[in-house]
């Protein structure tokens, strides 16, 4: 049973006919070819599929495409691009907060959702906000450092003199 939905994805208007049982994740990946958000566990436990829905981080695997009708969706593709990186992407690169990269889009979206709410998070805040994101290569330390540095950059704080 198909329904027509109209939404904005990364700022662009989209109107599509979608099956009622299609998840927002499937819609993004299969219809719009936005494959940044990943299918990990498909039950809301790994955070690889996070996107912003009206500015809030949600699991796209637990959201139906029809539920996004009339809403604004931001995926990792809506952030920076090569040569014009978002401060979070730049900080993840600088801190080597990436190994295989599968969890990275979800990590960055979780961090973005946090920083919209709380531009100056403590390490505890970052750990709490990212606790729904799994990295199986392990490397949470670098990820936390990257988020805190990006937060400082986004606040306009002067950059630290030397990286540790």
């Amino acid at each position: 049973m198909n329904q027509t939905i109209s939404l904005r994805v990364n700022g662009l208007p989209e109107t599509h006919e979608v099956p009622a049982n299609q998840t927002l994740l499937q819609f993004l990946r299969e219809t719009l070819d936005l494959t940044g958000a990943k299918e990990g566990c498909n039950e809301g436990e790994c955070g690889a599929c996070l996107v912003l829905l009206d500015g809030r981080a949600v699991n796209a695997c637990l959201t139906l495409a029809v539920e996004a009708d009339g809403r604004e969706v931001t995926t990792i593709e809506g952030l920076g691009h090569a040569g014009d990186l978002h401060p979070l992407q730049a900080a993840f690169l600088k801190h080597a907060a990436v190994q295989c990269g599968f969890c990275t889009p979800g990590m960055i979206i979780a961090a973005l959702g946090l920083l919209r709410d709380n531009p100056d998070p403590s390490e505890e805040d970052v750990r709490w906000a990212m606790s729904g994101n799994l990295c199986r290569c392990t490397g949470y330390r670098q990820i936390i450092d990257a988020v805190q540095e990006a937060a400082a950059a986004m606040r306009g704080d002067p950059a630290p003199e030397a990286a540790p």
Partner: protein
Amino acid sequence: MLLPSFAFSTARSVEEALELWACLPDAAYLAGGTDLLPQLRLGKRAHRNLIDLKRIQSLSRIRETEAGLAIGAAVPLADIARHPAVREHYPLLVECCRRVGAWPLQNRATLAGNICNASPAADTAVALLTLEAGVIAVSPEGERVISVTGLFRGPGQTCLRPGELVTEVVLPHASAGWHGSYQRLSRRQGMDLATVGVLVASSNGGAPPRHRVSLAAVAPTPLRVADAEALLDREGPRAARRAGELARDRCRPITDLRGSAEYRREMVGVLVARGVAALSGPSGIVVPGAGGPGPRTPDPGPQSQGERP
């Protein structure tokens, strides 16, 4: 794994939701969907129709009523946890909302959904039992108030009738100011159900203070332990260990992948004692593994809640 086929309807009012349920076959109400969608995917539930509640304005607000603070069935947990009146008067609920899954899930999951799912491990249930909250349930026959204590019948089972819709969860004025700490053991901090959850709370006013002890994940339903509460009311914190023993004897845990029945039973005793100690400690007790992920309420002072903008 794909979701099975179903049709999706959007209700714009409670009346419309009830009408849709009555005329659509095999229908279910959809709030946050964080339990329902995985259950559909795994075949644990089957529905040919989903009725979305999230566009019903009257279910998307938190309002003061004569009975107390009423939380709409479509309000996400994250909004409850940051609502000024909830933070000021019901810090226990804030703490428990912030322990459900992880933050992205809390941006979707709802309080009504968490308790209607009736998991024995529901984190918000222990807060609602402690606060003696009620739910407002409506059906074509009318509206009724059900205490959260009376709502749970067993794992996944409530006393709601087919098609009956929970519209609001009501936190009574009389429970304002109850404080305490949620002692929760789980395999990891985020995204896992409690292996054992224990909430020990005491009243704001009154001398001597009154106590409540609620348990999660150690019986077919979340439960209160009345005799442990009465003992603490009579004897205060020095009865912590004996209160733990009473709670240990009252729980009926099972063995599953998260822990054995014997482990859970022993931990109930330990966590009740820790919870009592945390009530009177100058800043609570920092217990590894029992602390909340991220900013939470380590002690009951209203200044310590880590208010976010």
